[in-house]
Every structure is written in structure tokens, then in C-alpha cells.
């Protein structure tokens, strides 16, 4: 996983609440069992006037001048709700989105972001409005967003921060606990034998 350190980009505003993963990547756009080939389907319901012919909807933010190459999205509450499909995050990353700023995130989507090097930042509505359309620099180590002279601090779970900053693989990290896992299972097999099929 590519480490996330700093990112400078224009913030593309998507001012909606409850943006669901069906909107981010509709089921019909998930055409293969792999994790790629998804970027053209990103936001397909809103991004295209004709989805089959891929006729762009010029009203959609990522089709507007200055936002075509945005790598930061800003949205409302409960971003990424709905289906657990990790394809939503794979599609965002493949398209080039490296950070989503939202008032809040759906829990499965949040974890999927961290597992794929996409930085989810939670901020309040006022801060998000102030950042919309602005050129910003995000510093993950310092947990701050710089925009002109202003700085916006953000909180992030320590685990998530460490994994994103160092581009760590969660499975490798967990294998370091292999002895503790084996001990736990040996004990548990005696206490709850019915769990083990």
C-alpha cells in the first residue's frame, strides 16, 4: 500500500448527505471479480447523462472545469453508507481520489478506505464549506489541512493513521501476534470446543 504523507489538491464539493456505495459504484458497474476496471463506473448515476454511452453530465462536479483531476472530495454526513462493497473505495482510488472529507462516514466504508490508502477525514459542516473549491494541503502526520492562511485540525484513529502513514499491510501487522493468536485458540478450543468444526 502506498504511504499517505501529504497531499495538495483542489477540494471538489459533493454537498449531499448519505452518499451511498450504490451511487459511488453501482452494482451493474462491478463487471469482473477483480479489484480493477472500476474508475469509469465511479459515480456513474450522476456523472453521465447516458451511462451506456458515457455521455458526461456537465453539472456533475467531477466534470466541471478545474475539478476534472480532483483528488479530494468533500461531502456531507454518513458518506459511503449502504453496501459493504470495497469496490466503492477501489473505484475512488483508481479514479485518483486520495482523500474524502465528510461530516461523517459509514463504518464499513471507513475501514475499507484505511485498508486501501485512501484518507478519510471527518470535519464539521462549517469547515467543509470553507474548504469547498479551495486549494489545500493535507498533512497526515500533523493532522491538519492548510488552506490559504487558515489551518484546520482533524482527529483520526491512531491505528488508521499509522497504517496510512506507513502504508502498512494489516495482515502483516497481525501476523506479529501469531503466538498470542495460537495461545488464545488453544485455550478457546478447550473452553468452547463446539466452535471448532
Amino acid at each position, binding site marked *: 500500500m502506498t504511504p499517505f504523507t501529504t497531499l495538495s489538491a483542489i477540494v471538489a464539493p459533493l454537498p449531499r448527505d448519505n452518499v451511498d456505495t450504490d451511487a459511488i459504484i453501482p452494482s451493474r458497474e462491478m463487471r469482473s471479480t477483480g479489484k480493477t476496471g472500476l474508475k469509469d463506473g465511479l459515480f456513474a448515476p450522476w456523472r453521465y447523462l447516458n451511462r451506456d454511452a458515457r455521455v458526461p453530465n456537465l453539472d456533475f462536479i467531477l466534470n466541471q472545469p478545474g475539478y476534472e483531476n480532483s483528488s479530494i472530495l468533500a461531502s456531507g454526513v454518513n458518506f459511503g453508507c*449502504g453496501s459493504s462493497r470495497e469496490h466503492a473505495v477501489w473505484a475512488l482510488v483508481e479514479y485518483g481520489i486520495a482523500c474524502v472529507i465528510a461530516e461523517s462516514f459509514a463504518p464499513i466504508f471507513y475501514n475499507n478506505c484505511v485498508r486501501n490508502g485512501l484518507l478519510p477525514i471527518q470535519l464539521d459542516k462549517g469547515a467543509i464549506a470553507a474548504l469547498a473549491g479551495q486549494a489545500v494541503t493535507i498533512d497526515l502526520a500533523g493532522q491538519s489541512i492548510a488552506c490559504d492562511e487558515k489551518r484546520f485540525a482533524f482527529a483520526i484513529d491512531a*491505528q488508521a493513521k499509522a497504517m496510512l502513514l506507513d502504508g502498512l499491510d494489516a495482515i502483516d501487522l497481525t501476523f506479529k501476534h501469531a503466538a498470542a493468536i495460537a495461545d488464545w485458540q488453544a485455550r478457546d478450543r478447550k473452553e468452547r470446543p463446539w466452535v471448532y468444526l
Partner: protein
Amino acid sequence: MSKTLFDKIWDRHLIADLGGGSGLIAIDRIFLHERTGAAALNGLKAAGRSVADPARVFAVTDHIVDTRPGRTDQTMMPGGQAFITETRAACRDAGITLFDVGDPEQGIVHVISPEMGIVLPGLTLIAPDSHTCTQGAFGALAWGIGSSEAEHAMATGTLRITKPKTMRVTFSGKLRPGVTAKDMILRLIADHGAGGGRGHAVEFTGDCVLLLDMEARMTLCNMATEFAAMTGMIAPDAVTLAYLAGRRYAPNPLPDWSSLTSDKDASFDREINIDAATIEPMVSWGTSPAQSIALSGTVPTTADPKSLTYMGLKAGQMIAGLPIDVAFIGSCTNSRLSDLRRAAALVKGRHIAPGVLALIVPGSSQVKRAAEAEGLDTIFTNAGFEWRESGCSLCFYAGGEGFPPGSRVISSTNRNFEGRQGPGIRTHIASPEVVAVSAITGRISAP
């Protein structure tokens, strides 16, 4: 120290404290389906890793497989066959038990896992599917994850989790006739928002919940994810034990699970109380489950214009009485035998309205056979409904079979998102009772 049900399961499964409020948690059961399962298994293989304990991993074909009679691996969804065949091959390679197309146990993951006693009280169970919280109805800690986390759980037998807060939702009193578990959960989400449960593991309790059968309890827990909760759960009781006794993967005799309740004086981070007698049959008007109202009510005057435009509605109007094109009964929310029985009782001897397309998709092959054994299929087909093979079907549109363009659908499913059931399709979610009666009248109607 007093503990909640959630805390008891968490503490039991905690292998290591990872700091910062996170823990390494042992995972007892993993369930995959063909939509995301092949991606996880192939990802694992590509990384040179293997499934640590395949005997505790199960898979099923439910999401992509067709539900038309006489189905095969071929699907109406373009490219869908690869999801089925690749999942089959990956499961065989990894030694994972697959409930495949045509198997007598095939069905929607959250319907068949309980049917076979794969979910049990006190277990941790995960699946790369958001509605895994359904299985919390058995007093398990069951929740949905992404493909990467599924790979992690299969490779290590654990997950790294930020410990959620706890919430207790208490439903007190008696439900009115015609009001169901679906209405209870829609009322909770409508009152407290689609993000209302974020960061929490929710325990449902109260005399009203204890009176629900297991299938209704599953409906209640099913939509905890629509509340943004990590999961919903209900403490196991005699109803739970009676359901599980004799199921294929359940231990015999059943172990003593009596300590799996929240202690009397356990404290929760948040409490919500709902008077069950005030709950009415609900229906969604908008494009989020939170945009739901009582069928007797009207669309709020403060309604989001984007949702109104998509749904072709105006603020202040009634949803009851809206003409429908399609009535759909199915999904992990409401497709079990009791759902079909209640719907059948309402359509028996009647016929669907002219021009309405009406479908019944049983939640599992076992539900289908049981329904046929008591003649429910005949009641439905005589009334003009299509009777399908089991699967997730048109709960979502995968690019294959779809409803007629522009359809307004009354649906017993869980998501009314824009485009969920197809581009431009307008979905109203409600109980199977509301769907059944609406199919007959041709308009959204109370049971």
C-alpha cells in the same frame, strides 16, 4: 463489574489490546458470497496467503445467480457467470464449504446461516456483506466488512477493530395489528437518522422484542446497518434455543448460553426508548431509509428536494394511494417463511391489480420448499404473482434482469437508494404486508 452483552462477547474474543481503543478480536465464523467472495479469495491467493481454518468458512451463491425457474450458472447479468464459477473454483481450492446453485441449502447468506445453525449465540461472525448484522438476532456479534477485512480474517482468524460504543434500543409495549419488525426498525431510523447508530453496537430489547419470533428478530437486526450501527443484537433466550436445536451445524446438546445477556445494571453509552404501541405501518418516501413515514402520514414539508425530484413527489403529499408498477417480496430483510405466510394470508383468493408486476423471491431454497409444502406458492401464483427460485434477486440491479424503466416499486427490501433497483427506478420500502396489499390494490396501501 456489570457488562453489556456486547462487552461480554468482546472481552471473550479479545486476543490483544492494540492501543488507541482498538483490539485484535478472534473471529469464529466467516461467510462469503459470490459477489465479493471470489475477490477476497483471489486476493488472498495472489498475496501468497492461505485460509487459516477453512472448516469455519462458508460460502453461498446468492447475489448474482438468477432467480428464474430452471436457472444454471448462466446469468442475465453480463459477466455474472464468472462470479459464480470463480467463487466455486476458489472455494474448492481453499477447502471451503460452498452452498452452490442447485444445492438444497442454497439461499441468501443471512437466511441460510441461521437455518443451518452456522450462527450461534456468543460467536463472532463476519461476512463481506453489510447485512451480516441480521445474524446478531441470535446473540452473536455479527457484522459486515469489506473484501480486505475478509482476507484478513481468513488469513489470521482475527480482525483489528476499533471498539464501538454501546447503545440499547428498548421497544416497550405491544405492537398494533398489522405492525411488524420492519416497521419497528424503519421507525427507529426515521426518528434518529441514517447515521443515528454510528460508532455503536446496538442491543435491541424490551418486552416487545422478546415477543418477536426469530424471523422477526432477524428483520429488526437486518437494518442496523441502515442505522450506521456496527451491528444489531438481541440476547439469546428460550425462543433462540428452540430455533437452533437440531440445526445441522449447531452443537448437540446446545451449550449453556444463559450468561449471554446484559447484566441488570450494565450501563450503555446511549439509550433510546420507543413505545411500540405508537408504531404504525411505515413506508419510505425518499432515497434513504431515514426518509420514511407512517402510511397515514405525509411527506415532510422540509423534504430534501433532490430526493423529491428523484422520486417524482411533492412535499406534503401522501404516499398511501400512490399507483405502483411493481410489488417485490424478497431479500435478507423479509423473505422468510413467516413473511411469506403473512403475505399469502392477505392475497389469498384475490388477484393483483391489472398492469402490476408482482414477484415473490423466497429467501432460501429451504424456505421455498417449506412454502410449497403448505401451498403458499399456489396462493401467490393464483393471485398473479411470479414465484421464483431463492436469491437476492432484484433487491439490487446488477445489470441483468431489471424492472420496467421508470417503475415505482413497493418493496420488502432494505434500501431505497437512487438507482438501487435500476436506473430511475423509484423504490418504496415497507413490510411484506404492505407490499402484498399494494399489489392487490395497485396503490400503496396499508394492510
